[in-house]
């Protein structure tokens, strides 16, 4: 609990979090202006999808940086060593620190989207369930990339390394992962489609998008072919949950196993 309190005070009094949040706010407002011409009853869904399509470019990289630099600063400030020499071992430190990060990033984010909902009320007919799904999608994406960022911060020994790792991770999930799958796509058959599907949904961006679009009813899987049925071998919500658990656990243990307690700088 005291980690959460400490993290909260640090970030609220700092500028990094506010800068990040202001980007999200600006994007949201811009999308709202752009969507003002949409119809009252269905425009809400269009806005959510457009907003998500924009935010997906920012939230992963912001969360990666916030997570990575937060851990790196603990090393740089020598507070990590001070904590490790008390009662904490690195694993428990990382858990508490991660929880602190999650709280600090998600609380302002969720607060903003609650305010945003009130703004939307003046323009569109609201669907609270769909909006909740949208917020849940953003939260899941943030959690995954914050934890990855924390792992990067644990591994890195300099800012340049953080930059390198972060850009690589972002690039991988944005381009490389799908590019590799596209290369294998012509060879997908009924025998291997389930494996292909599992790898496809390992990309948090795809898992989150599928969850959002199916959950809001925008994307439908009517009249699925046998191949597609095999591809969607479980519900999008379960794909997302599996993805979330996988990356949280993997990032966490990567951070523990490969951590470097000192930074060069």
């Amino acid at each position, binding site marked *: 609990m005291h980690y959460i309190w400490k993290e909260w005070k640090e970030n609220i009094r700092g500028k990094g979090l506010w800068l990040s949040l202001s980007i999200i706010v600006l994007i949201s407002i*811009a999308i709202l202006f752009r969507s003002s011409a949409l*119809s009252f009853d269905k425009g809400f869904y269009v806005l959510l999808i457009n907003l998500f399509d924009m935010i997906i470019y920012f939230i992963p990289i912001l969360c990666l940086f916030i997570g990575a630099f937060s851990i790196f600063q603990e090393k*740089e400030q020598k507070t990590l060593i001070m904590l490790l020499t008390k009662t904490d071992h690195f694993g428990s430190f990382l858990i508490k620190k991660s929880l602190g990060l999650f709280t600090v990033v998600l609380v302002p984010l969720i607060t903003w989207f609650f305010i945003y909902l009130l703004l939307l009320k003046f323009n569109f007919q609201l669907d609270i369930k769909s909006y909740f799904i949208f917020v849940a999608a953003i939260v899941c994406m943030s959690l995954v990339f914050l934890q990855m960022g924390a792992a990067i911060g644990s591994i890195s020994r300099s800012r340049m390394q953080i930059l390198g790792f972060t850009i690589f991770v972002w690039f991988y999930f944005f381009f490389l992962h799908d*590019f590799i799958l*596209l290369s294998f796509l*012509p060879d997908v058959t009924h025998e291997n489609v389930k494996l*292909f599907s599992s790898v496809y949904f390992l990309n948090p961006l795809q898992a989150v998008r599928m969850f959002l679009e199916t959950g809001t009813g*925008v994307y*439908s899987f*009517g009249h699925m072919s046998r191949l597609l049925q095999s591809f969607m071998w479980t519900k999008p919500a379960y794909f997302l949950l599996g993805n979330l658990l996988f990356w949280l656990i993997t990032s966490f243990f990567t951070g523990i196993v490969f951590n470097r307690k000192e930074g060069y700088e």
Partner: protein
Amino acid sequence: MKKLALLSFIFSLLLVMSPEKKLAAEHLQATIDSLKEGAVLKLENKTYQGNIVINKPITIIGSKKTVIRGDGTGNVISIKAPDVKLSHLTVIHGGMNRNSAEEYAAIKIYTNNNVVEHIIIRDSFHGIYLSQAHHNTIRSNHIKGLGKGEIAAQGNGIHVYYANGNLLERNTIEGTRDGMFFDYANNNKSYENNISHTRYGLHYMYSDANIFKRNTFTMNTGGAAIMNSNHLKLEDNQFLVNYGNQSFGLLLLQANDNEIANNTFYMNQRGMYIDQATRNEFRHNKVVQNQIGIELWSSSNDQIFTLNQITENTIPAVTLGGNSENNSWSKNGKGNDWGSTFPITDLDQDSIGDFPITYRSSLYQLIEDQELSYLFLKSPALKIYEKMNAALSKEAVMFHDLHPLTAAKGSYSKAIFLIATLLIVGILLKGRHLLCITFGRNGRKI
């Protein structure tokens, strides 16, 4: 004593059997039967039991809470006389039996020149069924089905079977199997209907010379599916967010000589999907922000695309199943506006590009061979994949526009975006020191 006992027994039976409903049903039917031709029947704010059959030209007007509830075995209201008017009713609980010889509906019309308006329909197989019924007006009704997922268990919002010359306007239909289904139905007009969450918002089979204007199709599996139907006019319609795995805004399948003008195709999986169709003209349409703007199978010939705005689509147009050189991407020296995807010069300022545009892509092979490729349409990796395959010479010509139009001027929202971006960049540049505090040593002087 005995008489008293008998009376009490009958009285108790009456209480237990609650005959008031049956009496009410018989009462409504009886009331209808007792009316003269041309009479107006004003119903009260209560529930009347169906099913009823209207055998003479009368007007039935409901109040705000008038409900006619069917018994679940057939059509709730059958109109078997011409010149009947129904309005301001709620009609529910029609027969849902799929095994019967007849397809049931909340309101089934067998005759001509009737008006059905301001009706709310729920819990019925079909909403309104026009069976060989001509020149009817179906207006401002609200029909709700079981939901988009249910295909087999329910029928269509409005089903038009061998029925011509009808007017269907300002109806709202959601969650039925198809929104409006036209089966061998010609010369009908559909205006300003709003259809969502159905399989196909509009489904034409063997129905010619119909007009549909200013309708809105949102979040259906397919916006409008036109099959084996010719000489249709589609104008000023909106096909929005029809975005499932196999979804489309407009499907033309074995459909010929149709005019598609001034429509908006926005955020669909495929804006237009054209297969085995001939001589259709696409004019002044906006095809914007779809995954695939136009999917054209080579079995289609002699399409004309002119004066359309085809912009911000992931793939503007794709030709599958071979080349489609029989189709024209311009008419009378005017092609299409492809937006900033294809930068063009216009030195003589005539709003027509100085050079033709040819779009080549390697994605056609992937889309043809593998249906799962649609799942990658939103991925940024797709563009890189396309470029890489271009380098490996796997491209084919998707379209060739001889007279591309110059891009329309950007809206003020782009200016807002630009200003916001400049602001952020300005803050970042000027606020370098602040950034150092934030990401650097947090103000500590070492």
